[in-house]
C-alpha cells in the first residue's frame, strides 16, 4: 500500500481526503467505494471530476445515496453497545455528574497515547481492491503517477453493485464513464 501512495498526485490525495472527510461526517468507521467515488466527483480536476460531470454524475447525487450511519464513530462511547452487555451508560453518566458536575464525562480527556491505528480511518476491503485496481490501470497505461482518473477507473473495474447503481442513477453507465475517463487520460 505504501509504495502505491507514493505514486499519488496531489489531486489523488485530495480525493482520498474528501472520501475520508465524508466517511467521518456520515459517522462511518471506514472508507468505502462510494466515499471514494464521491471524492472523485468532488475534485475540480480534469481526469475524474470532469468526465464524471460531463456524464452527469455529481458529488451531490452520490451523496444522496449514502445513508447516515447512526452509530457513533469508532473510538467514541456507544451507549447502545454498552446496554447490550448490561451497562447503563446514562446511569454511569448521571453518577459521575453528581460528583464532577454537568457535562464532566463528555469533557473528560482520554489520555491513552494515540497510536497510528487509533487515528486512521480504514478502507473497506472493496475500497482497498479499487486502489489496487487503480495501480494496475496506471501501469497498464504506462503512466507513472496515479491521478484521480486512475482511481475512478479502479472503482469502475470492480463491477461493484453500489458503484454501478450510483452511476446509473445519474442516467449514465459504467461503460460510458470509463470511456470518457480513458479518453481524457490518453489525451494527457
Amino acid at each position, binding site marked *: 500500500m505504501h509504495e502505491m501512495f507514493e505514486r499519488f498526485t496531489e489531486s489523488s490525495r485530495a480525493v482520498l481526503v474528501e472520501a475520508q472527510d465524508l466517511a467521518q461526517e456520515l459517522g462511518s468507521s471506514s472508507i468505502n467505494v462510494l466515499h471514494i467515488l464521491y471524492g472523485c466527483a468532488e475534485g475540480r480536476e480534469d481526469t475524474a471530476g470532469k468526465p464524471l460531470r460531463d456524464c452527469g454524475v455529481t458529488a451531490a447525487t452520490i451523496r444522496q445515496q449514502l445513508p447516515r450511519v447512526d452509530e457513533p464513530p469508532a473510538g467514541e*462511547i456507544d451507549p*447502545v453497545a454498552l*446496554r*447490550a452487555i448490561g*451497562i447503563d451508560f446514562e446511569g454511569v453518566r448521571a453518577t459521575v455528574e453528581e460528583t464532577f458536575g454537568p457535562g464532566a464525562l463528555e469533557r473528560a480527556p482520554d*489520555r491513552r497515547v494515540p497510536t497510528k491505528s487509533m487515528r486512521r480511518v480504514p478502507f473497506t476491503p472493496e475500497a482497498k481492491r479499487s486502489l489496487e485496481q487503480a495501480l494496475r490501470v496506471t501501469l497498464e497505461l504506462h503512466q507513472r503517477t496515479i491521478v484521480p482518473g486512475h482511481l475512478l477507473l479502479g472503482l469502475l473495474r470492480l463491477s461493484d453493485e453500489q458503484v454501478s447503481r450510483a452511476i446509473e442513477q445519474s442516467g449514465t453507465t459504467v461503460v460510458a464513464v470509463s470511456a470518457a475517463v480513458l479518453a481524457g487520460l490518453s489525451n494527457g
Partner: protein
Amino acid sequence: MTSMNLAADAGSDDPAVGLRAVASLRRLAEQLESLQVDRARDLGWSWSQIAAELGVSKQAVHQKHGSHVGFRKDGA
C-alpha cells in the same frame, strides 16, 4: 427508544455489538480515570496513593496524568 430496541434485537451475541461495547468500555474507563486522578490530586493525594488504588506503578500514573493536572482549571 429505537436505539433500545436495536440493542435488544442485536443482542450481545452479535460480535459487532460486543466489540463496540469493549471499545466503549475502554474509552469510558480512560475518561473516568482522568476525572478521578485529577480530583484526587486536587484533594492532595500523592502519586503513590493514586497509583496504589489504580494498581499501576507510580511512574506510569505520573507519566500519564502528571503534565495535565492543574491545566484543566483555567482551560475548557
